[in-house]
């Protein structure tokens, strides 16, 4: 579904991503992990069209999408959530999701009423229907994360990019959010590329993990393979924690 090859991106003198390549198969949940500054969010920004890659190729459903603007990438079926939620603060939850319904998927000439009706469905799915008339600025962090999920789902994505969806959530909320992501995958048949720092969650959720360090791919494999890999332990905890 998604094939990334030889991806390079630098900001001035800083090489943020260097020769990164991996693929995501349809229906998979792939975890993208690494220490802070490893280049995970940059990869996500490159895939979602926020940044343009210096070199390399990003192919989605057999089509080159590198260099396309975000809205065209969204129309091809890729949507994302943000590490720090970026809601439309002065808009209600319902209006925010309505924007996605009207502009995301292929729904020509849909009326505002129909779009709001469909947006209600996504809000109901993430458990925010009761807060549909609440301004985003009045929602708590968990609700903001759910709103971002609803907004992304409303664009009818084939591939969902989750950027640290569990950051700042307490264990109870994280567990509910994980259930929600699983049921979204099951109900909408989406594929997920997921950046996460909460190892317990990502190891339980992902079928495959890609580890980045210093902008380069370190390891790729199943969660079990990755968690036992010396290079990963060294990258996260330092050399003295590696058991030979």
């Amino acid at each position, binding site marked *: 579904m998604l094939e990334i090859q030889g991806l390079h991106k630098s900001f001035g003198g800083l090489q943020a991503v260097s020769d990164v390549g991996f693929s995501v198969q349809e229906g998979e949940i792939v975890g993208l992990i690494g220490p802070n500054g490893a280049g995970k969010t940059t990869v996500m920004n490159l895939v979602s069209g926020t940044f343009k890659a210096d070199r390399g190729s990003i192919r989605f459903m057999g089509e080159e999408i590198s260099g396309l603007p*975000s809205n065209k990438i969204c*129309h091809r079926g890729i949507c994302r959530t943000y590490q720090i939620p970026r809601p439309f603060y*002065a*808009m*209600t939850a319902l209006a925010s999701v309505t*924007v*996605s319904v*009207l502009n995301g998927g292929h729904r020509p000439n849909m009326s*505002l009423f129909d779009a709001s009706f469909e947006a209600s469905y996504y809000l109901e799915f993430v458990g925010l229907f009761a807060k549909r008339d609440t301004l985003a600025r009045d929602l708590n962090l968990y609700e903001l994360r759910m709103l971002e999920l609803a907004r992304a789902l409303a664009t009818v994505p084939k591939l969902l990019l989750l950027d640290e969806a569990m950051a700042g959530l307490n264990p109870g909320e994280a567990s509910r959010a994980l259930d929600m992501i699983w049921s979204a995958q099951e109900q909408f048949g989406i594929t997920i590329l997921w950046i996460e720092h909460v190892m317990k969650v990502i190891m339980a959720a992902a079928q495959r993990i890609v580890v980045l360090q210093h902008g380069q791919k370190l390891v790729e494999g199943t969660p079990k393979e990755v968690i036992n890999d010396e290079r990963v332990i060294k990258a996260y905890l330092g050399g003295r924690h590696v058991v030979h």
Partner: protein
Amino acid sequence: MVKFELKRDRIIARWRDRKYEYIIEPRYWRNPWIGVLLLVLLPLAIFRYPAFLTMFTTANLLAAITIPLGLQMVGTARVNFGPQLYLGIGGYTAALLNLHLGWHPFLTFLATIVMCAAIALMLSPITWIAKGLYFSLITLILPLAFLDLTFIYGDLFRGEVGLVGMSPLLDLGRVTWNYVSYYYLSLALMLFYLLVADKIGRSRYGVTLAAINEDEDVARMMGVNVSRNKVFYYVFPSVLTGIVGWFIVHTFRTFAGVTYLPLDYMLKILIIILIGGRAYSYGAVWGAYFVAILEDVIRPLGPINYVVFPLVLIAAIVFLPRGEGIFGLYHKRHHRDYFPQLKVRRN
């Protein structure tokens, strides 16, 4: 027989099987027809005083400039400090074609639309390139540069004196009737702009506009073609502003860049925006009437009136920081009503 019933917060009128409810507190009088009716009946009270009619015609025109500006500010997510550029372009296009080529006002109207659209389209990439303060500074400079051109090419634009003697839109024979007719024409123009802005705001496009105004990167990620929207919402309101220039030319029959292009004129527009609520269409009407009346009241003060407007502007910035304006604060019914907050962004 109509039966009236007084409840705690409303009056209920019953006629046959119908029921009409009127909430007593004026802030809930949301029906714009009340306002329209008042404006339509206004000349009946003041038709003997041409000065008042001119003042209210000016108010209508100020509102007709501010309403599209609000639409533009939300649609481009940028604060435009020089909408009067298109007022100048529209006005001079109409005036020059009418004076030198003898074009009928209808033809000058079409020419104004074409000219404003072409120039706005040419300048529209600044909505992509220039962000935050840079956009505001560029738009601030453009009308001033145009004003300089009117002095440099004084033979054509007649510099400080301006162009005079353009053909009128209507001539009813009597001066009073002409004043009344121009009031109604300006009111029709303003109400048409209000209707357009209101329809856009309440449609699917309005929701998309709000998203662009809130966070254009996120809106783009949700499939909104932000670049196309920005071009449209830069060009379309510019054309509407240009039409006001055309209207001024064919009603007042005089047009001088020195009146409309300097910063003083923009100051009035800014006050209207701050008083009426930033980018809030209905508030623009209240703001415009306030400014037009204030301008007439302080005129006898002489040179002091140059200080009054900047002071009012500073007071509005300090005391109305949330950007909802006096009208917005009073009129907002639900906390969930979308109220565009315009910010000068860094990104």
